């Protein structure tokens, strides 16, 4: 694990355009920057192009008959958008896909071992770290992954990604389909992972969760980035509060305060 906030290192998506099946424009001219050490949130409603942007970074567009038609993805200035997924992983970028996608027929520990495919020497160290972060996985290491609960599967998907000790973690809607208590747990885990030195690009529809821990946020709509601001400014924005935090007026200020409160608590803990 490494020092957070190291100088100037950054994962950047520059003026990206992505087309599926040669015709369907899914992302047009999006730019996103993820400075090392941070948690950056990427928000947007269904079909906005968030997942597509992540696939462009991790090299998984091919599988979906998608292609980058314009723009670049750079890691510390070097272009990586033409690399095969395995190469991107070796550069230290790992995506946790929407819907968890655990290897249901494999055991918990086998799932984790697969996560260390590119760094077999780090397996033991990785297992220690993951079991420390996610104790329920340690208890069920020999269980078949398909029988885990939704929350446990999300932990497993995140733990599997961490096994190769990536610099950047791309999380696609980790809170999807989880009960509020579990969403909170996942949020705390993301913070913990970040504090251990992993940079996080967090795609979420649950904006209040994402903004409660991110330092910067992007909002996508129809394949474009329509907003790009530090979290405090985003949370003060009327449109954001209305459409994404679902909380204008009295009630809204309540949940808004909750979010703030959480941030303070987090600072005491660290």
């Amino acid at each position, binding site marked *: 694990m490494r020092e957070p906030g190291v100088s100037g290192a950054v994962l950047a998506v520059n003026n990206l355009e992505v087309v599926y099946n040669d015709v369907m424009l899914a992302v047009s001219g999006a730019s996103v920057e993820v400075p090392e050490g941070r948690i950056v949130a990427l928000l947007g409603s269904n079909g906005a192009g968030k997942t597509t942007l992540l696939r462009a970074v*991790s090299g998984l567009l091919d599988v979906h008959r998608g292609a980058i038609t314009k723009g670049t993805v750079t890691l510390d200035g070097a272009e990586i958008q033409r690399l095969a*997924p*395995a190469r991107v*992983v*070796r550069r230290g970028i790992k995506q946790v896909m929407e819907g968890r996608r655990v*290897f249901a027929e494999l055991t918990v520990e086998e799932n984790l071992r697969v996560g260390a495919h590119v760094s077999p020497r780090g397996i033991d160290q990785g297992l220690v770290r993951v079991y420390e972060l996610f104790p329920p996985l340690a208890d069920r290491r020999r269980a078949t992954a398909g029988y885990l609960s939704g929350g446990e599967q999300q932990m497993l998907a995140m733990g599997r990604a961490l096994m190769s000790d990536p610099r950047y973690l791309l999380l696609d809607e980790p809170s999807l389909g989880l009960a509020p208590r579990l969403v909170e747990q996942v949020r705390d885990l993301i913070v913990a992972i970040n504090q251990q030195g992993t940079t996080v690009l967090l795609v979420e529809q649950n904006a209040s969760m994402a903004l409660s821990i991110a330092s910067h946020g992007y909002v996508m709509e129809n394949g474009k980035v329509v907003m790009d601001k530090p979290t405090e400014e985003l949370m003060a924005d009327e449109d954001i509060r209305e459409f994404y935090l679902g909380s204008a007026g009295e009630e809204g200020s309540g949940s808004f305060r909750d979010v703030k409160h959480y941030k303070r608590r987090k600072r005491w803990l660290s």
Partner: protein
Amino acid sequence: MSTFAQSIISGLGQGSAYAMLAVGFVIIFKSTGVISFAQPALMAAGATLVSYLVFQFGLGFPAAVAVGVLVLAGVGLGLERVALRPLVGRPVFVAAIVTLGLDTAIRAVTNRFIGPDLRPVGDPWGYDRLELGPLFLQHRYLAMIVTAAIVLAALFTFFRYSRVGLAMRATAFDQETSLAQGISVGAVFALSWALAAGLATLAGVFVAAGSGVSQGTWVVGLKALPAIVLGGLDSLPGAVVGGLAVGVVEALVQTYQPVHAPWLGGNFSLVAPYVLMLLVLLVRPYGLFGTPEIRRV
């Protein structure tokens, strides 16, 4: 009683050859979603190569088998890379048709080398028998059973514990997620073909042991088809059980049917595996060990 035991042993021996082939089919099917009809030709090619290594190049039988398996594994790797990889993402039946083409081409080349006659593979067993009380057990069947058991145990260990074996299982389950873990799925495809071709070579040597390899040997490879359907297309244990079951049923029918049910005809043992397959499918539509939902690429 001793006739029965003898049929079982020879059935298991013959069946272990089918099992090797069937396991190859299933490995390719699980990782790529394609049924490779090239297995029978690879089997004949492997056995033929071993024959040449023994009689033209003077290698000992075990060394020849080892070299043959490795060379054919390389051939399998190459075939996948050149002929199959470009088809990834296309409908799987296109790839299946291409494997049929490969089968024909490999057989044409192999037949030239086999020539018109039976060509021995240099095995030390012939038809020698071991007398065990009232039983006469052929050495070659015992050797096949033992070899198959060792190879299958090694394969099991590979898939269960090794990094690459685990990557293959992960890929069989979910290709995209495997890519996201940094697994090179193309390499997994190539390795599946290499394993299948190596296993086919071993099966070819088993089939040819005692007699030899001829232009008709590849037909034996087709018997792996009822074996895999019987066991369940996507199950390795199923392929083993299916292969052994086909061998045993064939042997039992050969022994008893001419006496007890002559009205079924002279070559019923050739049909018996398919009858067994249909009976199993009536009860278990996905085979003995298959999973109901078969994943597509």
